[in-house]
């Protein structure tokens, strides 16, 4: 049986003219397929809206409060694990140093002072090299290069600030 255009009308919920309505009625008398389409369309359009049990928003508030508590607890536990892990890791690395220190404190102090002096003298040397370079470099670097350098630094700075802002932004509500 040819269902066109009746099937299209029913599927698209077309507003029918009186002539079209008559034609459809005639077709529905003989076509079970289109009758079922029409019946389901009618049933769907007359279906009721189911309402939730009374006190829905109250139950939501309770659930939200529970969720906030659970979130806070999760964060606290995360922090505890992180701190304990950090302390453990620090202890793991520090244990040999502590043992060395306890075995011969004088030798250890000498080594530490030696390192400290090495760092200080290295820093002094690097500062001197940097100051010499800064005195000489402006004569070699053209002005547009300075502009490029300053712009690049400004760009990186902006990118850094945006990244920090985006990562530090917390979702609304949960941590409140």
């Amino acid at each position, binding site marked *: 049986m040819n269902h066109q255009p009746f099937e299209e009308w029913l599927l698209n919920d077309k507003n029918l003219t009186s002539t079209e309505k008559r034609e459809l009625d005639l077709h529905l008398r003989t076509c079970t397929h289109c009758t*079922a389409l029409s019946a389901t369309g009618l049933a769907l359009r007359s*279906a009721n809206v189911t309402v*939730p049990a009374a006190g*829905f928003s109250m139950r939501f508030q309770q659930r939200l409060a529970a969720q906030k508590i659970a979130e806070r607890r999760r964060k606290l536990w995360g922090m505890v694990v992180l701190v304990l892990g950090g302390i453990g890791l620090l202890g793991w690395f520090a244990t040999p140093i502590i043992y060395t220190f306890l075995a011969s404190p004088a030798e250890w102090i000498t080594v530490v002072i030696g390192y400290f002096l090495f760092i200080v003298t290295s820093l002094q040397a690097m500062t001197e090299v940097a100051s010499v370079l800064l005195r000489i470099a402006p004569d070699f670097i053209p002005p547009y290069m300075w502009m490029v350098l300053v712009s690049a630094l400004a760009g990186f700075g902006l990118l850094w600030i945006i990244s920090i802002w985006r990562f530090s932004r917390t979702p*609304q*509500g949960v941590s409140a």
Partner: protein
Amino acid sequence: MNEETAWVIQAQQGSDEAFTKLVETYQTPVYNLCFRMLGEPELAEDAAQETFLRAYQHLHRYDPKRSFATWLLSIAAHYCIDRLRRRKFSMFSMDAEDDEGNTFELPDPDSPDPEAEMVQGQTRDRIQSMLKDLDDTDRAAIIMRYWYDYSEAEIAESLRLTVSAVKSRLHRARKELAGLWQEEETRTENERRPYESPAF
């Protein structure tokens, strides 16, 4: 600025009171969508609560240029689809069960016309039980179309589909429902026949 937009902005700024007003306004449409999708009042309640919780947590992502109802129903529909994909539920949800485990709805004796009420109730249950045989996304599209009068464009936006995909899904679902309706009619007809008087 209308009241709803004001509530959304206040809720985005952290006002729980404003969000509660949004919950009170949209609890019925969200619950109804979840119920039609999942078919069980308990599951629907849980899904509706979860929908509002997700909306609360992601309120900063809501674009005020979009309709809040569409955004909320989109969350509900996706949640229900995910849930149905994880596990298939029995979607029959009636008020009573007979000895063979067949479910039926008890008519309200206080209603003016209990017989008409019962027929209407049976039609509603028939639609609800037929919905469960549809594909999850098709079902969501049908619910949005017939319960919320959403246009094809709005359904497409909510379900992240193209308008033509929505149209073909709606047509396919309607044809499937009609097929199921026909099967049910034939079955009922065959069940009725043995009890009919031979004189007719």
